[in-house]
């Protein structure tokens, strides 16, 4: 390996993941090799059942490979225990889900504060950091509202604020625009792009929509538990980000 080459923040080598045993055994991942560089925005596409969600769970330290190696910042995660992986999540990872997954009957501010509670930040620094995160997603005026009082796009913005409030190195987004209309979707994508560009957060995003994948630097196609192809997004590489006008 050449000395000056930057080390990938996420490195999967020969990762397999098998569910069940005996007759009903199902191999969701059949040997994945995949790198994500710091600051990279990767879109993952593929039919359902292609293994992309399984891969996301492993990268998100929610699951471990059956075999193969997953290194996060050069550190092997595969043999860590449950609580140790929780520590990794709380320190380095942010999650954005298709269904927003906000706590019901809980204000936007309290939702955003949640990860900081587990980091044992004190009340005032929690508040400051959470308000800053809500500010970043443009919802500073909505901090006292509960999810049921917010639109879908706003809920997803709160979820993004919750994901970035810990200043993670990697943001994992599982179909973040799956429940939103196209205009709201583009707003969310523009927000993710700007977080990637301005805060340098690496993003790995699962999506079904080529329009959304077009915001990423790299698009990885999954098929039958394998990486089918990995392509550079030439438009982004040439500096032509899609529909930045909505920003």
């Amino acid at each position: 390996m050449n000395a000056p080459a930057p080390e990938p923040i996420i490195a999967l080598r020969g990762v397999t993941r098998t569910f069940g045993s005996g007759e009903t055994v199902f191999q969701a991942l059949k040997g994945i090799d995949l790198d994500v560089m710091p600051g990279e925005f990767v879109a993952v596409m593929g039919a359902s059942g292609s293994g992309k969600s399984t891969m996301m769970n492993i990268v998100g330290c929610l699951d471990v490979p059956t075999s193969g190696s997953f290194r996060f910042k050069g550190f092997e995660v595969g043999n860590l225990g449950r609580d140790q992986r929780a520590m990794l999540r709380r320190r380095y990872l942010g999650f954005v889900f298709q269904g927003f997954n906000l706590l019901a009957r809980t204000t936007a501010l309290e939702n955003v504060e949640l990860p900081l509670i587990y980091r044992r930040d004190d009340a005032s620094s929690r508040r400051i950091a959470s308000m800053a995160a809500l500010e970043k997603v443009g919802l500073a005026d909505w901090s006292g509202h509960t999810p049921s009082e917010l639109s879908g796009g706003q809920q997803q913005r709160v979820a993004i604020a919750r994901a970035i409030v810990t200043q993670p190195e990697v943001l994992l987004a599982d179909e973040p625009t799956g429940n939103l209309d196209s205009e709201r979707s583009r707003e969310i994508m523009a927000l993710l792009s700007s977080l990637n560009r301005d805060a340098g957060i690496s993003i790995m995003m699962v999506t079904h929509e080529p329009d959304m994948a077009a915001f990423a630097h790299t698009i990885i196609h999954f098929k039958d538990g394998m990486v089918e192809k990995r392509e550079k997004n030439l438009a982004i590489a040439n500096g032509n980000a899609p529909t930045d006008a909505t920003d």
Partner: protein
Amino acid sequence: MIGITIILALREIRRHVMRSFLTTLGIIIGVAAVVTMVTLGNGATAAISSQISSLGSNLLTVRPGQGFGRGGGAASPPPFEEVDVDAVRKQVAGVLSVAPQTSIAATAIYEAQNWSTTVTGTTNDYFQASHLKLSAGRIFSDAEVDSGKSVCVVGSTVITNLFKGGDPVGKTFRLKAISCQIIGVLETRGAAGFGPDQDDQVVMPIKTVMRRLTGNREVRAFQVGVDPAYDTTAVSASIAALLRERRKIGPNADDDFNIFDSKQLADTLSGTTKTLTLLLGAVATVSLIVGGIGIMNIMLVSVTERTREIGIRLAVGAVQSEVLMQFLVEAVALSCLGGLLGLGLALVATLAISPLMGIPFVFDLQINLLAFMFSAAIGILFGYFPARRAASLNPIDALSHE
């Protein structure tokens, strides 16, 4: 961390006020039941003790005839004589005072009023042994007792019914064929208690009653005040032995008199109420445990209902012990709140019921603390299982839970 966990738990409870209240209803009722039962039981014990101590402590009452519940002999046993009383006074160790009594029903008449009452003939020892105090006037002088003068100390019931206002001391009223001067008035004792109503009596020197009212020298009963340094049981046995000898009772025959020990009655009655209190407390404790099962039930439902929330918490980096703590603290907070409400309810209930039952309100800090701690312990006991289940959820499954 524990601080924030408590805050989170209280927030969760506040979010579901109605459900939380219903969940803790079992604990509320359980704690209230235990504390109310025990508090009322203590009040009843206190009431009984004070009634018994009003009879006089270290007091033996000796009557002819066999005691409670035993079939009477063929012939009614003879009364005592004054010499028996003297013998007990002089020959039995530990006897402080002996008050012989004889009594007769009589109608008291003053001007146009009359009142049927009981005349008790006795000595000054009677006031001391029976713990009777005077509200006005004086007790008998030795000369009055010895010479059998027609003077009397009168109970408050008699005073109320005979004299309409004015100071009765010094006034004279008629009892059967004799007239009698009031020298003292007994303090009102109240109807509660055992034995005859001591407010409704006229106390006279025993000689006066024997000579001028009953016409015989029979002593119907006598009270023995026992030196506190002596055991009443032993003194009672000595008196029994002396009386058997004086009344010539054969070695195999039963006593034809009975000795009533107020202390024994006190012990028996307060022992009985304590047992009853314990029993009621135990029954109430069962309802407390049932309340705990109610909490477990709702917590289990809550864990299922909040599976996705648990998934979110795990995803943002909560470790298992933190999720466990959250649900455990929630259960404990619920049961503690229930416990506090239960204590409040018990306080209101006992304050309301005590006067109805005519017993004093005795606040027992110990049982309140105990019931509260028990409710907290139930929260831990029955909260652990649901909390354990929450903590062991797989984050991926929890997040995809619908």
